[in-house]
Structures are given as C-alpha cells and as structure tokens.
C-alpha cells in the first residue's frame, strides 16, 4: 500500500569497525531461493513458451523456431469467440462475487461481534476440499431433476434466463448460467477476504463522524465506507477476475461445447490436439489481454496509490 508512512531514517549505526561485507550481502542471499524458484519455474517456462509460440513444424518432424508470428493472428481470429466468452463469464462472476461478497464482508467486519471467527472459518471452509470435488458437487445441485432446477422452473425463473440466453430450455446444467455460478462459487472467498481486510481497517468512528455530519447511513456508505474499501474492491476483483478468465474446470464440468472458455481451448490444444505453438500463442494473448485490462482498470479506479 502506498499510504504506508515513510520509514523513519535509520539511526546511524554505532561505528566501531567498518561494516562487514557479509552484512551487506545478506538481503541478496535471503532473496536467492525465491529468485531461483522464480527463474526455474517462471522465467524459463515463459521463455520456452515464447519460443514455442513462434515455432512451426509437426510432432513427427519436430518443431523449429521460424519466427512465425502469424500463429498469433490465426489463433486470435479463430478463437476470439472463446476469448470474449471468457471475459464475459469471468466479468459476470466477478460482479456476482462482489454483490454477494460485499454484504458478507461488511457483516463480518462490523456486525458479527463474537461470531466473526466462526463466519470467517465458514468462508474458508470450502478450501478444505478439492476444487474439483466442489465443482462436481454443483453438477448434483444443478442436476436436471434436482430441487433447484424444479424450483426455478416452478417460479418461471428459467423462462427469463433462457430468454436472456443464460440457460437453454428447462436445464441449468451445461448452460452459461451454470458456468458463471460455478466460477462465482469457486472464487467467492478470494473476493471476501480482501474486502474484509480493508473494511475491517476502517475506523468505526469515521461512520460516527459522517453520521454526526448529517450523512444518513446510506450516504455514509456511499461517501465514506465504500471509498475507503476501494483497495479491497480492487484486489478482490483482480483476484477473482484473473483466475476466472483463465479457468477451464468450471466450463468443462458444468458447461457444454457452447460454453467453452479460452482455458478449455488452450488445454485441448496442449493436451489433445498437441498443437503447441497455437496453445502457447493463446496463452500469451490471454496474458497480455489480462495485463492490459487490469492496467486500465487500476488507472480508471484511481487507486494506484491504494493497491
């Protein structure tokens, strides 16, 4: 956070001997394991993937770097629907997470009292089981003859959602709605935790001060609480949107061929079709797209100095 106050200048060390060399190198030595890890598992694969993306050839004859940049263009023109869908689904899931997570985080931070820890544990509890199992559980929840779908049918909610193109017929499973629901559910804690952290840091006296200065509770929220929770909103949306945009498990388990996201395309290019250059190019396009969107978003929300 940039609101951090400046560190006080270090007191001049008592000078007995000239500072020993080892002391000067200690910070770098401590950084070394982390840097080595990043180098081997992040920097090297990036370079490797980058080179893969501009190779041509085939599995049988082997691949060669031919600076074939048109792979990028081909990948983009062929798979832009999946890109757009990923942004749409991840965006919807992020908005839903924010709408569901904010009241809950607010409740935990200001109203929960002695229940605070219990609710926090409940928020984190899903992490104790595997991501895959949790997503599979939604298959049962949204099953065609399950109580959820029946209730939604009876209430004619599905008529509305299918008119909006979010569901197909009287099914929820294998529709965009199911994928967005799965994404929302799986990334909700990543929204709640940063929101809670930034809400919890707000001095309750600021609410009292706003109240005292003629702000109704709703105005207090709009003018004081929400602006002060912006760091949490920004990091929460980023922590939700970025992984959701690249996710393929939800679309795979809860969706259909019509709900394929870019993650699914990359996965099948790598593992089934074995077209490594296209897969690598798609990965880079996704990465740059997210980078640009995030930069614009942070600029726009004016919280460079808060994140």
């Amino acid at each position, binding site marked *: 956070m940039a609101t951090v106050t400046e560190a006080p200048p270090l007191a001049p060390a008592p000078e007995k001997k000239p500072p020993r060399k080892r002391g000067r190198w200690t910070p770098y030595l401590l950084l070394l394991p982390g840097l080595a890890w990043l180098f081997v598992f992040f920097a090297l694969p990036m370079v490797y993937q980058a080179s893969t993306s501009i190779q041509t050839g085939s599995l049988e004859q082997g691949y060669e770097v031919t600076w074939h940049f048109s792979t990028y263009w081909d990948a983009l023109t062929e798979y832009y629907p999946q890109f757009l869908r990923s942004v749409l689904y991840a965006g919807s899931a992020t908005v839903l997470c924010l709408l569901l997570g904010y009241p809950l985080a607010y409740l935990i931070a200001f109203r929960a009292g002695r229940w605070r820890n219990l609710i926090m544990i409940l928020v984190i509890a899903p992490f104790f089981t595997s991501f895959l199992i949790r997503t599979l559980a939604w298959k049962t929840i949204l099953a065609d003859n399950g109580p959820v779908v029946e209730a939604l049918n009876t209430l004619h909610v599905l008529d509305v959602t299918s008119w909006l193109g979010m569901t197909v017929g009287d099914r929820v499973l294998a529709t965009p709605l199911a994928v967005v629901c799965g994404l929302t559910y799986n990334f909700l804690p990543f929204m709640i935790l940063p929101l809670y952290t930034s809400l919890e840091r707000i001095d309750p006296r600021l609410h*009292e001060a706003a109240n*005292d*200065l*003629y*702000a109704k509770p709703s105005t207090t929220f709009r003018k004081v609480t929400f602006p002060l929770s912006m760091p949490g909103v920004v990091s929460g949306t980023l922590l939700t949107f970025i992984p959701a945009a690249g996710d393929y498990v939800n679309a795979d388990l809860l969706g259909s061929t019509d709900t394929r996201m870019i993650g699914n395309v990359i996965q099948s290019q790598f593992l089934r079709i074995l077209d490594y250059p296209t897969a690598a190019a798609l990965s880079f396009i996704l990465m740059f797209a997210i980078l640009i969107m995030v930069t614009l978003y942070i600029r726009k929300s004016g919280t460079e100095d808060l994140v």
Partner: protein
Amino acid sequence: MTDVTNKNDNTGDVRLSGISKTYGGFTAVHPLDLTVPQGSFFALLGASGCGKTTTLRMIAGLEEPTSGTVHLGDQDVTRLPPYKRPVNTVFQSYALFPHLDIFENVAFGLRRRGIKSVKKQVEDMLELVQLGEQARKKPHQLSGGQQQRVAVARALINHPKVLLLDEPLGALDLKLRRQMQLELKRIQTEVGITFVHVTHDQEEAMTMADTVAVMNAGRVEQLGAPADLYENPKTTFVANFLGTSNLIEAEVDTKSGDDIVLKAGGGKLVLPQARCTAPTTTGGKVLVGVRPEKISLAHADDAGEIPEGRNRITGTIADASFIGVSTQYVIDSPVCPELAVYAQNVDRDARLVPGAEVVLHWAPAHTFGLDAAQDIDAGIQEEAV
C-alpha cells in the same frame, strides 16, 4: 442535579433529564439532570470511565440513553438519529476522512445538507482556523495540531446549536495543548455557540470552561464555576481531583458564632460554619481541608510572630522541592502525615530545609469542612494522568 442559570434565550440550551446509560449489568451513567445554558462553555471533567464521554455521546445521538430525555432548546431529540440533530462533534482522535482532502472534509456537512456553493464558506472557515494554505492536502499530511483544527472547522462550519468536544486536545503535546485551549476559547467567544467539552485534564477544564461538572463513577459530584469548585469543594473527590487538598481528620469541639472550633491532634482549628458541608454535632468527625498554597510556613523559632487568630499546626519538613516560582514542601505533623505546602519564592528562609521544625498557619477563612464519612483519598490517583 442543579440548574446552572435560567435564561430567556434557550434555543441552544442542552437539557438532560433523568438520563442514564447501562451496558448489561454496568451502569455507565446514573440518572442525571443537567442543564447547559445557551452560549456557555461547559466542561464535563472526570477520570476515564466516569461516564463523561457516554454523556456526551448521548447528546450527540451516538449512544441511546437507557432512560431519560435529551432536549435541545425546546426540542426533544432523544429519539433523533445523530444526522438529524443540530449538534456536531469534535472527536477524540479527530476522525477526519482519510480519503478526502482538507477542503472536502470541512465541506462534508454542508454538502450532506444539500448546500451547493460551499467554496466561500469553507475558505472562510479554513481561514478562521489558519489552514487556508492546506486546503488540498490529505489529513495524514498535517500535524496533530493542524488536524485538530480541521476537526473543529469541520464541525463549526455547520453552525450547530451545540458543539461537542470529546477530549479534543488529548493527543497534543503540552505546549500545543495550552495554545489550542486559548484558541478554542477564542473561537467559542467569537461564534457564541454552546460548547460542551469532555476532558480528564482539570487544568484544561478550569482554564476554558465557565461551568465545570465534575463526574465520578457515573454521577455528577459537583457543578459550578471553576473558582467556586476549587475554593469550595463539597466532596473529597472534588477536593482531591481538582488540584491538591490537605485533608485533616478533626473532631467538633464547640461552636462560637459563625465559626466551628475543632480539635485535631492536640491543637484547635477554626472553620467558618458557612464553609462546612458536613453535619456538625459536638464530638462528631469532620474532614478539615485547606489548599497547599493557602498555608504559610514559619520556622518554629519564629512561632511567636504569627498573628493571632490563624489556624496553626506544628510539624517537621520531610521533603522540599524547588520548582522555580515556588517551593513545594511535604510536612509531617502529628495531626496529619504528609501535608503539602506551596510557598512562593519571594523571601526564602534558608532554615526551611528537610528536618526543620516548622509551624504551618493559615487564615480560618481558607478552611473548608467535608463529611468524614467519605473516602479521604477519593480522586487522588486519577489526578496523576
């Protein structure tokens, strides 16, 4: 407890009737009646946890009273939420909005009431508190004293009927605090709004307020003008909490005219009947009080030169500390251990050193009498903040 005055213009009066606050089994404020007249500077003085802040918060509407009513002028505001009360608060830690600059902090109240053209008013108000240059800074870029002035400006700009100040100077260092005390007093005189000021600093309360209510354990112990409270404390708590008092246990001997003659140790002390709040039956116990600066010291050899008719006690100097304008003596006497005496350093008697035999004497008019049934040490620890 008591009405301070009755004035005709009472739109800025604060009237608390039977107001109390309990949290579970703990009573923070016992049923309390208090009237703060329009335009006065009123201080609620007491140690932490005495209920003074809770009382203030009930006036602000930030705390709902368990019983009783709050009136501002003739309007019953007991059930009104804080944002509908014509009252503003300067919070203890200022509670400035960290995401807004100084200008917007000060403009906050005006904007909430839908006032469009705030520029002129805010600039004038910042000028009043001498912060015109800082308008576009964020609160964390200002010093403690400047933040405090922003907090005052943010409240005052709304022209509240009553300004509530919750330990507004607590976070400032001593020198700045003295400066801000005068500043606040000046602003109060200028704007003529009723100020209700909560503090644990007795000096602050006495310097600034016209009327001080001393609170202890959820009750008002005594209420009055600062000089009146200091000269005529009615309880041991007030006597010890406001400044220092020497309290001597004595027994009522006889009454002569308007005076009571008491026996303390071997000697006799005279106390004006009018200054005694305790029941005085012959043989009954009374606590005799006298402020340390009212006592004069004479070396035992000069005892003959002390004028007739003064109260006198003999003792030995146990300790003397020179603090510039005065010297503070601690005297051990058979009548009472550890009597405090503050002597102005006008003509210093070189014989007055620890171990010297001395006679303490003072005018009977400076003596006050308190009920001996109270805790003689009440209010002593709390003073050392």
